[in-house]
């Protein structure tokens, strides 16, 4: 009996979490079946599963899922490349920092989505607009974190490198960049979440495919079950992406103290 209680104690959070999820699903199903709330508004877990199954079999659910994933990857990749480059340039050259700073701040504070009519005119509905929105959402934290990481390089390490005869290029690549990686990775983690938001928002407003589009489509037609299916997929996608990045973070940063 003693070993059982200690086994439970160790996994307490895990068990409670699972219990919590099961409770929510059970209560949800119950409320729906007993019609305590009109199932029209909240659907039910069983109904959602059924709908999901049908839509998968018909093929278009997975197709939209895939489209969202592709848009995400492209937007994220672009954001990372552009963001890190700009952040580096800002960190290296004070003048670049001073010039870009006000625009960066503005981009950070504005609701980027407000510009979507302009983007639609330039780039049309669909892929290009969604990706652009994703990039605009994401690029700011990546730039800021890269910049901070590079400029906060420990002066002692720089002095040490100089004392061994390092030139400016060597200091950049062998000291500044590696020491900035933890901050850059944090920026990437924030960026992953923001890219997903940007892509979904883009699809919601200005696409004709993808999970965001499905949400908009079924929302307008009041088809709550299908709506929930799309929402759940978005949640799952979000979880997959954040966890993957967490793993990547651990791999890259194995030299840090924990």
């Amino acid at each position, binding site marked *: 009996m003693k070993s059982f209680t200690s086994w439970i104690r160790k996994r*307490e959070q895990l068990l409670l979490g699972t219990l919590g999820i099961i409770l929510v699903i059970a209560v949800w199903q119950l409320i729906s079946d007993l019609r305590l709330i009109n199932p029209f508004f909240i659907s039910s877990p069983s109904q959602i599963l059924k709908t999901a199954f049908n839509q998968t079999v018909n093929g278009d659910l997975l197709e939209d899922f895939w489209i969202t994933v592709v848009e995400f990857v492209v937007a994220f990749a672009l954001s990372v490349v552009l963001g890190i480059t700009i952040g580096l340039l800002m960190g290296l050259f004070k003048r670049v*920092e001073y*010039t870009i700073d006000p625009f960066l701040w503005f981009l950070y*504070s*504005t609701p980027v989505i407000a510009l979507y009519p302009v983007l639609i005119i330039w780039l049309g509905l669909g892929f290009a607009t969604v990706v652009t929105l994703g990039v605009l959402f994401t690029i700011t934290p990546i730039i800021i974190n890269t910049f901070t990481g590079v400029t906060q390089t420990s002066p002692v390490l720089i002095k040490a490198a100089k004392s061994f005869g390092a030139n400016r290029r060597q200091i950049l690549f062998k000291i500044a960049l590696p020491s900035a990686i933890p901050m850059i990775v944090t920026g990437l983690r924030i960026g992953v979440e923001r890219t997903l938001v940007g892509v979904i928002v883009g699809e*919601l407003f200005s696409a004709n495919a993808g999970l965001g589009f499905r949400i908009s489509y079924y929302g307008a037609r009041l088809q709550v079950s299908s*709506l929930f299916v799309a929402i759940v997929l978005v949640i799952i996608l979000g979880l997959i992406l954040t966890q993957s990045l967490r793993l990547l973070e651990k791999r890259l940063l194995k030299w840090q103290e924990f």
Partner: protein
Amino acid sequence: MENKMNSTTNTAVPKPVSIRRRRRAFRLSERQGWGIGAVLVFLAGWELFGSSGSVLARYISKPSQVVQAGAEWLSGGDFYRHLQISLQEIFGGFLLAVAAGVLGGLLMGRSRIIRGLFDPLVMALYATPLVALIPLLIIWFGIGVGSKIAAVFLFAVFPVLLNTITGIRQVDPLLIRAGRSFGASEWQLFTKILLPGSIPAIISGIRLGWGKAMIGMVIGEMYVSTAGLGHLISSLGNSMKMGDLFFVILIVAGMGYVGSNLLLRLEEKVMVWREEALGK
């Protein structure tokens, strides 16, 4: 210079204060110079390009047009109606979010069990783009103010909740032990130690929540609404009234900035009080 340095004091003789102050007032720092310069160049370029006859120019407006539109809007009644609705939505949703977030955070922060039960749900929702839930909110609460308040609530509640939880959990266990050793009841521990100790984190969460609240309001209104700043953004954008559109965007950005700033100052003030209290 050398003679003064021969003394055994550690610092150089500082310049007289009056001379230092005057010098500083006349010079812009290099950082400000380049920044302001860049913005001016940008505005000038925008104005020039917007004045050219090209097709694209029509789609991006120009600064003078934005100012003009702004003047018109500010003098009319329509703008303030929309502003009022947006403000109602934001404050309504935000206050609800703060209440729920702090309350929920206190409960979850204090009790392992409650935290364990709700953690996966909270984390799953926190990791999702909440915009995806807006159409659902519209179905539940209609196209009017209700769904926007719900959206603001949804967006703002998570930072508040999570920061409150962290705030409660990071209260120095030593203080709690000390309180217990003086015979404090659970309620007293809560009100006199845990709550005050977590206030900086809570305020930080509230500040972050404000930013999210604005986003929730704007996106909610842009998606479906009958009035409000987001509604304006959507309709102006669709009818390509770019000058007006940029003006409204500026207003929204301004609101976000002002709110954040005020809350930041509050946060800093609380930190100062805390330092002083701890010092005593």
